[in-house]
């Protein structure tokens, strides 16, 4: 059975926890926050995407409107099934390693 004094203490502690009115506190904090910057990760994604599109366009026109793609497919179709399998396996392994590396380097909660 609970001690009545314990119950009284719990009730008093809960009851005597006043809600502190904001009274401009949040606004004051917001004024002191560092200015919002465009995140570098967003900029980086945009730069990489733009550079990729530009590179593809340059390569496309510089190679006689995509003849290199045609050539690559021709070479690929000339590969033996085992060679083709090895190429696919190598690509899959590289992607798996990159994914694992990204997952393992994820940081945990830090104390500030």
């Amino acid at each position, binding site marked *: 059975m609970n001690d009545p*004094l*314990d119950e*009284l*203490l*719990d009730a*008093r*502690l*809960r009851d*005597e*926890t*006043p*809600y*502190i009115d*904001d009274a401009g*506190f*949040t606004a*004051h*904090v*917001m004024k*002191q*926050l*560092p200015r*919002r*910057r465009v*995140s570098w990760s967003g900029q980086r994604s945009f730069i990489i995407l733009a550079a990729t599109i530009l590179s593809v366009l340059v390569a496309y026109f510089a190679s006689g409107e995509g003849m290199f793609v045609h050539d690559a497919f021709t070479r690929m179709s000339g590969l033996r099934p085992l060679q083709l399998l090895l190429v696919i396996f190598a690509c899959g392994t590289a992607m798996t390693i990159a994914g694992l590396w990204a997952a393992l380097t994820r*940081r*945990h*909660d*830090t*104390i*500030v």
Partner: protein
Amino acid sequence: MELTDGDLLARVLVDGDQHAFGELVRRHQSPVRGLLRQLVRADVELADDLAQETFIRAYKHIRSFRGEAKFSTWLYRIAYNVFREHARKRKELVGIDEEQLQAEADPQTVDPGLRHDLMNALANLPLHERTAVTLCCQNGLSHDEAAHVLDIPLGTVKTNVLRGREKLKKMLAAWAT
């Protein structure tokens, strides 16, 4: 429908939405300021300065919050660290003058006029007991969560809560009779 803390955090993290962070501050300002007022013995201005520092620090380091604890627990931990840094600067950290703290905790030395007020009684507990009682009995944290906030063993939290409560009960019993 009201957004959860998680929804608001996602907006802050993905879109850098400062209004979402403002809503988080509005939601959690009262318990954080209340905790700091208990820690600094009701010096309201100082407690609010420390609370502001707590939220600014939380915003700057928001990417280090991975949701392994509740957002409120993470905030309490930052608040406690901000308080400790302040106390170190002022050399007021617990343990420096344990004798004085024990004297403050003795009900015989407390102004009899204050016994009626449980909050004043709480303010007269030693810092480690006051903090544990405030977190667990007032702010509703579990012993595990309080141990995480204070970065001390679970057993120590339980002992501090128990000792703090016993002292408060003595004061309450004296007041009740």
